[in-house]
């Protein structure tokens, strides 16, 4: 079973949970990102996600390695959807298990922030009056010279 995957099919959070559950774990923290209908009053009809799939999987695996460097006892699983998503459908699911809750909370937060920085996935908003590829939602300075923001310790 792969711990990290991209899929055109609907995601269930349990798929991630079952990949990290183990006897040593005392906590599992999950994060689910879903398709939002209203953004500052503007209505989204549906979202379209595109990815550079093989590289996206590698970057998700890299996030898992970064987490293990920072929290050696944490185990991570991440699934990200591609294709068209209706409102409230799951775009991303993350589960992190660890012996104690603090690492699990911290690591699942870290995972979603890193996804938004380094994983080659793009979201296109489809509104009633048009479409737009979204980007740079974290407004990172690091993007503007084309360099990768390094993660890590």
């Amino acid at each position, binding site marked *: 079973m792969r711990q990290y995957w991209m899929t055109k099919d609907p995601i269930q959070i349990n798929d991630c949970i079952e990949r990290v559950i183990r006897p040593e774990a005392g906590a599992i923290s999950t994060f689910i*990102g879903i398709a939002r209908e209203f953004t500052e009053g503007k209505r989204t009809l549906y979202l379209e*996600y*595109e*990815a*550079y799939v*093989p*590289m*996206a999987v*590698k970057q998700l695996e890299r996030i898992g390695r970064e987490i293990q460097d920072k929290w050696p006892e944490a185990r991570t699983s991440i699934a*990200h959807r591609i294709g068209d998503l209706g409102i409230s459908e799951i*775009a*991303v699911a993350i589960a992190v298990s660890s012996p104690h809750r603090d690492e699990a909370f911290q690591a699942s937060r870290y995972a*979603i922030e890193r*996804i*938004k*920085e*380094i*994983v*080659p*996935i*793009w*979201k*296109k908003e489809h509104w009633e009056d048009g479409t737009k*590829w*979204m*980007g*740079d*939602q974290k407004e990172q300075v690091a*993007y*503007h010279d*084309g*360099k*990768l923001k390094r993660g890590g310790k």
Partner: protein
Amino acid sequence: MIQVLLFAGLKDKVGSSSLRIKEENITIEELKRTHLGIYGVEELLQQSMVAVNEEYAEMDTILKTGDVVAFVPPVSGG
């Protein structure tokens, strides 16, 4: 031969998700300047990260024949 992959807004503006360029032993910066200038996507390319063979790379990386170069516009997963 170098393969160039384009995504999201870059793909839409260029009108293609993949280009094949007959070059080798040039840097990514040179590839951008000499082969992508015609598409009018300088600003998007400037904001993009770049990957060679599915790993992030620097703009001064020298490309060999068979390399796959991907321009990665600002990402918006999650």
